[in-house]
């Protein structure tokens, strides 16, 4: 009796090679079940499973914990305490990740593997995986924390399913962990699809505009996935195997035309996720319309999976040097320059689109697209500092964007709107949230002393030393646009006139504030002492075979001009000290006045007067560059959709013919003509 279900399961799972530890675990379970009447066995059971957990392969442990998170959220997601449980579980995942020690140690293969029809799917963690897994789990952790308290209460009260949210988040994390640990093409595609669908789920959770955006995302994502599948088929046909070793060998033996095809397929597929031009249109709405905490997660890490793919295949396997040899016919450009220019345009166009947004969520989401361009640009420059800057920007951007979105959604949580024309003056009501947003925008704009400056500096630096003036100017112009639009963001939300209806607004709840403040501290620390993050990046570079950045605790040592953030921040702080001394140390005491005690050209201001400059904030600039916003990409997208519609109409017309046998006769005639 007892064995028959087991044997059935064994038969079903013949393809699944379980790690040795799991057999032991199964033994423990069996034993425990046998003694289930004996209550004393429970403690033993608990101890043994803990021992098993400690003894197993670290990567398996990571996967298992992630899967456990998913399972528990599926089972217990409805409970009020599920949020806290989720935080603990993500924390456990983080601990499990640290225990893998694949960053400084050797790559570690997971023992879990699946064999399907002679093809083996397996996973392995190395420094690159560690780096991205750290970002993923970290994003999951702060998101779960942010969502655990007041936010989730509100979410529930609106009749939404807390379980669905928790599951979607856990599924995202799980899928990403699988993807970044993939060690062959099949497990890569498995992870890729899992990630795509999980983020679709997270976007579509709330329906309405979110669902529309999610559907658009899906159209892009599946097209991208199909390109990747095409690339996988190509690689398999050349290399005859799905293993990475064979793939590397296959790429080495490919002709230029084949590499071009591969580049277009893979690049296109990954570019969709990374939202590179011209595949960027889905991202802003999809990320902005996701439920608040979900938006934080998506914005922080989700699109980076595309970059991960590009790093593994285009930077790692094809290699920047090979890219440089691939000339585009009839031009002076190589494929590397092509990608670099796509990255540069991805910086410019979305950043200046962000400048036009009137919704804080959309503004940040558009910036998210633009920042992806810096990462790719750094990687495409390909020297030690540039590629390190690109990689480091993943980390810096993740913490920055998470903090920014959290702050914005905290405002939304309290005021009910993200409309930049409906807010203002909240700094007096939500000072801590303001602080978080301030740290975030300084980092996003890439100004010292925050984290974003370090990575952007590295990218600029490499562009200068490699002699790429136009790309450099483009990147800096992107940064300038960022400064403009983030100032608009903070001005319209926190500065200026406080509206009457927001007089009584309270500071964000503590459950949301703690992760926000934690991230802000991290943003500052990562700018002040970039050494630790640089050490991770250096390991990743080493593993990818790129030149390794010469890093120290404070930044980069280089005879041709390095960067020491400890000094720089120290000088800046000293400067602020001098400034404070000049301002506070001399002269009369300043007196606080009411916000309406203000110059109004001789008029008296009352509370009902909206005295805030928010709409069309950069009117002068828009007067000049406004006509450049032609919506060319939207036009492209719409014309593609229209083409598809037309083709579909034609296809459907074949089934709408009045004469049912017409096509049949035609086919018969055509076939016979072809045959004879």
């Amino acid at each position, binding site marked *: 009796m007892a064995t028959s279900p087991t044997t059935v399961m064994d*038969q079903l799972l013949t393809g699944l090679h379980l790690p040795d530890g799991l057999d032991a675990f199964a033994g423990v379970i069996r034993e425990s079940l046998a003694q289930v009447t004996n209550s004393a066995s429970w403690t033993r059971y608990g101890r043994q499973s803990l021992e098993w957990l400690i003894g197993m392969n670290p990567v398996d442990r990571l996967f298992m914990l992630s899967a456990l998170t998913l399972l528990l959220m599926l089972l217990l997601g409805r409970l009020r305490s599920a949020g806290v449980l989720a935080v603990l579980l993500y924390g456990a995942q983080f601990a499990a990740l640290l225990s893998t020690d694949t960053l400084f140690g050797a790559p570690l293969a997971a023992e879990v593997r699946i064999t*399907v029809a002679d093809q083996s799917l397996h996973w392995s963690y190395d420094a690159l995986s560690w780096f991205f897994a750290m970002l993923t789990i970290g994003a999951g952790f702060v998101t779960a924390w942010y969502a655990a308290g007041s936010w989730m209460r509100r979410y529930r009260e609106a009749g939404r399913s807390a379980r669905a949210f928790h599951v979607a988040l856990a599924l995202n994390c799980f899928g990403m962990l699988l993807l970044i640990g993939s060690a062959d093409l099949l497990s890569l595609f498995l992870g890729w699809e899992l990630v795509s669908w999980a983020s679709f789920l997270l976007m579509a959770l709330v329906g309405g505009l979110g669902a529309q955006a999610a559907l658009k995302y899906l159209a892009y994502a599946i097209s991208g996935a199909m390109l990747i599948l095409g690339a996988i088929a190509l690689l398999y046909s050349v290399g005859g195997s799905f293993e990475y070793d064979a793939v590397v060998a296959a790429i080495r033996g490919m002709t230029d035309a084949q590499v071009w095809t591969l580049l277009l397929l893979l690049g296109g597929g990954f570019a969709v996720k990374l939202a590179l031009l011209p595949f960027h249109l889905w991202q802003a709405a999809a990320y902005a319309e996701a439920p608040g905490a979900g938006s934080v997660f998506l914005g922080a890490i989700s699109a980076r999976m595309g970059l991960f793919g590009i790093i593994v295949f285009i930077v790692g396997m094809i290699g920047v040097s090979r890219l440089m040899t691939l000339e585009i016919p009839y031009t002076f450009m190589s494929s590397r320059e092509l990608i670099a220019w796509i990255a540069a345009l991805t910086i410019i166009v979305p950043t200046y689109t962000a400048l036009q947004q009137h919704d804080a969520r959309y503004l940040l989401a558009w910036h998210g697209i633009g920042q992806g361009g810096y990462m790719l640009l750094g990687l495409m420059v390909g020297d030690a500092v540039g590629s390190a800057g690109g990689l480091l920007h993943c980390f810096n951007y993740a913490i920055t964007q998470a903090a920014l979105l959290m702050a914005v959604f905290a405002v939304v949580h309290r005021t009910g709107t993200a409309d930049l024309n409906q807010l203002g003056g909240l700094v007096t009501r939500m000072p801590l949230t303001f602080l978080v947003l301030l740290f975030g925008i300084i980092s996003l704009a890439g100004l010292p002393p925050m984290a974003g400056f370090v990575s952007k500096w590295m990218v600029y630096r490499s562009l200068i030393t490699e002699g790429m003036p136009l790309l450099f100017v483009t990147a800096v112009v992107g940064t300038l646009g960022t400064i403009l639009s983030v100032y608009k963001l903070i001005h319209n939300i926190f500065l200026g006139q406080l509206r009457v209806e927001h007089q009584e607004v309270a500071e964000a709840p503590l459950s949301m504030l703690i992760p926000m403040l934690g991230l802000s501290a991290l943003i500052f620390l990562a700018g002040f002492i970039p050494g630790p993050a640089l050490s991770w990046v250096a390991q990743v570079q080493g593993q990818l075979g790129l030149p390794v950045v010469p890093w120290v605790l404070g930044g980069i040592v280089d005879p041709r001009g390095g960067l020491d953030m400890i000094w720089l921040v120290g000088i800046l702080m000293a400067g602020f000290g001098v400034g404070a001394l000049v301002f506070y140390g001399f002269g009369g005491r300043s007196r606080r006045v009411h916000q309406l005690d203000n110059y109004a050209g001789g008029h008296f201001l009352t509370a009902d007067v909206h005295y805030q400059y928010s709409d069309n904030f950069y009117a002068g600039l828009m007067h000049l560059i406004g006509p450049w916003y032609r919506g060319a990409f939207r036009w492209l997208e719409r014309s593609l959709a229209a083409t598809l519609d037309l083709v579909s109409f034609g296809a459907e017309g074949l*089934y709408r013919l009045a004469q*049912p046998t017409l096509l049949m006769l035609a086919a018969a005639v055509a076939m016979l003509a072809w045959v004879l």
Partner: protein
Amino acid sequence: MTLELPVDLLFGLNLDLNLDLTRVMTANAIVLPVVLPLLAAFLMQPLAQVSRLLARLLGPLVLTLGAWIILNTWLEVGPAPFSVAIGGFAAPLGIVFYADQLALLFALAVQVFTLLFWPGLGVVAKAEAAADRQRAPRRDALALLLASAATGLALSGDLFNIFVFYELAAVASFGLVCADDSGRARIATLRYLFISAFGSVLALVGIAILYLQTGTLNLAQLAQVAPETLQGPIGLAAFALLLIGFGVKAELFPLNAWVPEVYATAPARVSALLAGLISKLAILVIVRLLILVFQQPEASQLLLVLGVLGVLTGEFSAWRAQDFPRLLAFSSIGQLGLVAIAFSIDGTTGLLAGTAVALHHLIVKSALFGLANRWSGGLDALAGAAKGAPRAAGLFVLFALSLIGVPPLWGFWIKLLIMVGLVQGGAPLDLLALGAILLATAVEAHYLFRVALRLYQPPVPDRALRLAPPARWDTGVAYLLGACLVVISVAITPTTEALRVLAQQTGDVLLYIDTVFPQPLADKE
């Protein structure tokens, strides 16, 4: 104990069975799943006069018996193929049934799926109008006829016999489509009938050409003489005509104008049977012809081209579809195009991929049509349907994911098999097909999830779902098939291995010949 069963059937199928019930386990019993439903179909009307309950139960009983017999035979006889000469006349003079694993699998599927989608099952008797009660025996008889003919298609080893079964299935399906007396169904039936009948005419011409060239219609004998006699354009012409003839039921591209109309008007269960089951059997016939008789690469190419066109037109049209049954119909066209592409791949890979994708589509599309019984309205009216039926909506998502080919579901492995097969083929046409599949998949994902999202939307007040009677049975069947899908996805390795064995057996022409003619034919001549 010996039972004399002189059965003189309508269409020249002369059977004189000497059935020894003690030997019912042996191979000869395999004819029973063909004969018994046929018999029951003719007994249905008289029986209904005697007892309505008995008549209602007759169909399911016969089908259960048939399934049991096939399963038993399969287990008893083992994996090796066997052939049965009907009435003791040996091939090539007599009619043979050839039962390898593929045939048995599909014969079994016929019994099981007809049972699952049996028109009378799970329908609340009170809800049934008096007119319906009048129609029930007729409808059941037609369904039994369909089951019998479909089983015959799976097992038959003689081309003309196949043609007869095919026509029988056609007639039964005409009757089933317009069984519930709606005017639009009758119009659709007529249009379907013209296509189907003209297809049969062309197939008959093809058969005539074959006979003219070879002098036989026995598949095994054809397989022996085909390399000498059917190499030229004449042979290809015969194949083209047969492809057009049998392609009508297989929903191949230019021959499938009936599909959207019929599925939009026929009862959902009939659509499920036609789209899921009958189309597969028609494909099975084409594949048998392709393997045994027409081994020219051009023949495969013909199938490939039709498959590509089917995939593209089907999926693109589905993208524009506005009601659920028609969406499924177009999607079904696309999927059958995929089946055709898979079978056009050379060697075992193609057979494996083709069989897998056919089975996958059988499971998924049947279940989806089962769900359509509940959601038979326009797509806009589906908004909020998930509220009332969360599990059904979940099932829809599961099936949609598998259709699109999302790992780790079965659909993904199948698509991978096809893609690998096409890439290994490597011809420009193969790569074109690959591109078409990728493009179609993207389109497919979009429209399927447009529906899925609509299911989960809040309902639109003024366009509330007009609730069909709660189709518990159909939803239950969908659960069952969904569970099947999940189990197969988990046990993907054993499934693939089993299918590989099956495909190897199917692709073995010599095995076929040796099984039908135990001694070499040369001795006979």
